[in-house]
């Protein structure tokens, strides 16, 4: 059974899915400055996977994403988030370890309206990345699992 969609859908997908992924990464990256964050960005990235799945069917993802890789990455994201929360336990669980420390994201946050200082936020950007990783892989594996399940139904 050919479960790919029409050439129009496939072409549009080829053009847009990369953009969608980049936009998702942007949303994750700027999570501590603008609306969005790990979950939203991760969901956007996962929607690119959904687009691929819809346009090309499960065959379109063969070799690109496999279930074990997704699951492992999801666990890594979750553990990273928990690890960052544990890292602050010198003060309290979830304490922001890096805030105002001057390291990569440790820049001081200016008070009041500003143009957006990316290297601020302390551990928050890292947490956003951890959550983003977990969400994008988690939703992708849900989509793949369900689509495979439904295809199996249809084939029977």
């Amino acid at each position, binding site marked *: 059974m050919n479960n790919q969609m029409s050439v129009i859908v496939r072409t549009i997908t080829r053009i847009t899915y990369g953009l969608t992924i980049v936009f998702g990464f942007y949303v994750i990256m700027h999570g501590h400055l603008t609306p969005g964050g790990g979950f939203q960005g991760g969901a956007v990235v996962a929607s690119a996977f959904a687009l691929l799945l819809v346009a090309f069917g499960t065959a379109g993802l063969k070799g690109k994403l496999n279930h074990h890789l997704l*699951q*492992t990455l999801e*666990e*890594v994201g*979750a*553990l990273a988030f*928990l690890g960052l*929360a*544990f890292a*602050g*336990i010198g*003060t*309290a*669980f*979830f*304490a*922001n370890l890096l805030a105002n420390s001057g390291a990569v994201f440790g820049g001081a946050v200016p008070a009041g309206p500003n143009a957006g200082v990316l290297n601020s936020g302390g551990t928050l950007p890292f947490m956003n990345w951890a959550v983003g990783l977990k969400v994008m892989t988690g939703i992708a594996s849900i989509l793949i699992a369900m689509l495979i399940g439904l295809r199996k139904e249809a084939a029977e």
Partner: protein
Amino acid sequence: MNALTTHAPILIIATPLLGAFAAPLIGKLGWTVRTAFAGAIAALTGCFAGLLAATLYTGGGAPIVYVLGGRLPLPSGLAAPIRIMLEVDGLSAFMALITALVAVVAVLYSVSYWKERSGGALYDSLLFLLIAGVFGLVLTGDMFNFFVFLEITSVAACGLIGFRTWRKRSSEAAFKVMALYTLSGLFVLLAVGLLYGQYGGLNIAYLATNLGGTMVDRVALALLIAGLAMKAGAVPMHMWAPEAYGEAPAPVSMVLVANSQASLYALFRVLFTLYGQSLSAAAVGWILIVLALLTIFVGVTMALVQKDLKRLIAFGAVSQIGYMLLAVGVGFAVLATRPDFGLTAITGGIFHMINDVACIGLLFLAAGAAIRASGSRDLHSMGGLAHSLKGTTVLFAVGAFALAGVPPFNGFASKLLIYESTFQLSPVLAVIAVLASIVLLAVFVRAFQAVFLGPRLIARPEPVPWPMVASMVVLAAVVIGFGLFPGFFIDKIVTPAANALWSGQGDYIRAVMGG
């Protein structure tokens, strides 16, 4: 106060969460490593819970507040506490002890419960997620996180109920339970939203200082009562409970009972700490009492006619929830006048929580062992298992007698407190409670006779592996220990918990709000 003690409240939640996230990765290293890891996580969680309880009980029962990502006191200039907080008082610590007991026993039992050794990592993951959720439910100090943990337990619990996807009935039970859990969770969230809209805060202590018994508060209370009583399994909203307990794997059934009790805990917390006397307590108390009587009565009578062993025990579990609801309902009904028997009733109800989880847990585990050994769960086709499973037989009998309130087991001790105190409010309540206990004894005599006595109907039952026996022995030790020394345990752990409900509202609020 050392660092471990300070951080104990969050470590109790974070450790099983770590277990849940790491289990699938660790699982790739093989069965031995996976099992050792699960055991270590469970043992560590148990230690933290014990540490927390010890700190609290030796510290005079003053609530412990843990602020995530910061410290008390509140930043100046804020009217409401906005940080996420855990607040542990006598009752929370007591519930944490129950959950820790259940967690350790469930993990130990699960080691050899599964006959096939693959796929167990996901099971471990969900089990730890459920345990973390239950711990969160009983330790959290703010309403929204309460909802979050409620949903975590829902998702994990339903994942476990439907874990055996190849079984027809598991999927059915999981779908129904999930739909109902989600709905109850959403009603709780609606109530939380109402309270937030009214008072601009989510912290329980902060809300408790502000609640005034307006119509919005009443609507929120109704939503909370219905949602939480549903999740606790009160009749007539109990229909999911026999399905959930009955279709889940045996150790999960036990954790689900603890989960229901956590919902019950939340209901008590909402009533006594959040609302207290800001509304007519007698009416709410009587709502609980009516629900409780229905639960006790319908639970035992339905258990009498079940043909499926686990479903029978599940209806027994439903009826026991009624006893706790009855006792604490009586306590709440007389909160304004504060006669002596109110505190006695609450003490009995809370003492019955740990007794119930030990007895019901023991019964579920023994039934799980019997079902695993015989390959059947139909009372009609089982029989004569006592010939080959001697240990399990004795343990099942202990659990059954204890649950039915036969002296000298622990169920009798707590039920005596409930009978005597509810009798003071209305003799009818005590009479129904006693009668239901007698019927419950009959129910378990029937189950015992059908499964264990008689000639060998099951040709060659499988032997029960030692970790399963050991976990049941732990519960049996609790059952007998609490039965023989009830005074000691009531004094040490139950009284602080009961006092936290009966007269602890002020302390609970002061711990966060100061003053």
